[in-house]
């Protein structure tokens, strides 16, 4: 993907083509769960897509933080003598 778009940008044109941006925005749109679930006939503006993208990435980052928190507690509270503990110990500790 990166090599394809790199060559199209170096085609001598000095402008970022609007078509490129539209294409990228529509790809972004197809990745976002919020917007994807809407009816396809609904037009979604570029700014809305960008806003939803920021929200989506923020939520993913938050989930990483929450899961890290949860995992640290799970690993801390495991009964060290249990069977699970020895399995986990061999896996990750």
């Amino acid at each position, binding site marked *: *993907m*990166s090599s394809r*778009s790199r060559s199209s*940008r170096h085609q001598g044109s*000095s*402008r*970022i083509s609007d078509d*490129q*941006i539209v294409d*990228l*925005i529509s*790809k*972004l749109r197809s*990745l976002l769960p919020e917007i994807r679930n809407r009816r396809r006939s609904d037009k979604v*503006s*570029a*700014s809305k897509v*960008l*806003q939803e*993208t*920021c929200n*989506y*990435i*923020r939520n*993913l*980052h938050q*989930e*990483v*933080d929450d*899961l*890290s*928190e*949860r*995992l*640290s*507690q*799970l*690993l*801390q*509270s*495991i*009964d060290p003598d*249990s069977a*699970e503990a020895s399995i*986990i110990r061999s*896996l*990750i*500790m």
Partner: protein
Amino acid sequence: MMHNPSKVRQKIMKKWIMGLRSCSSSHENLSLSERRWIIKLSADLALASVRNGSRRWSRAIIEEASRNPDNKGLIQRMLGSGCDYRSPCLIPREGRSDGNGAGHVTKSMWVATSSKKIVKRCRRARRSNGRAPRRNEAASIAKRLVKKRTQLLKDFVPGGQDMDDVSLIEETLDYIVWLRAQVDVMRALAHSLPATTSI
């Protein structure tokens, strides 16, 4: 966009667990927040390392983590001295004057010039127009909003501050797909561990 998602998740999981194990000697004496830090950092580094430096965001994750000297050990253990972010498989630092590790000087200079040209062109057009019909006003407001939202997006994508708009969106497309894989992996481990009995 991702050839084999489950294989990617396996790679991330493996790399992540390797990072956690490399800290095993100190595991007994860690505070909760230290443990959380290690869990998160090794997951982020696992993601970046599996992406193998072929994307600006993955290099940025490693660069940003390297700025904290406390992280050096884990970075070295996970990424090895053979393929850290300064190795030939990743773009060398020497390309940038601000020391930010990406050899994209030509591209961003080109983009800065072309966007200046576009702004100049718009200003010229508006002046010669005389009146400002509502449609053009709405279009310029929309453009400003897109510009503002694009700026915000730069904060969410690692390394986004140094990117032109097109690269930013391309990097975002890639980053979302791979970040989702990292979240899936972390969720899978969290769900596989026995629930805590203590409150």
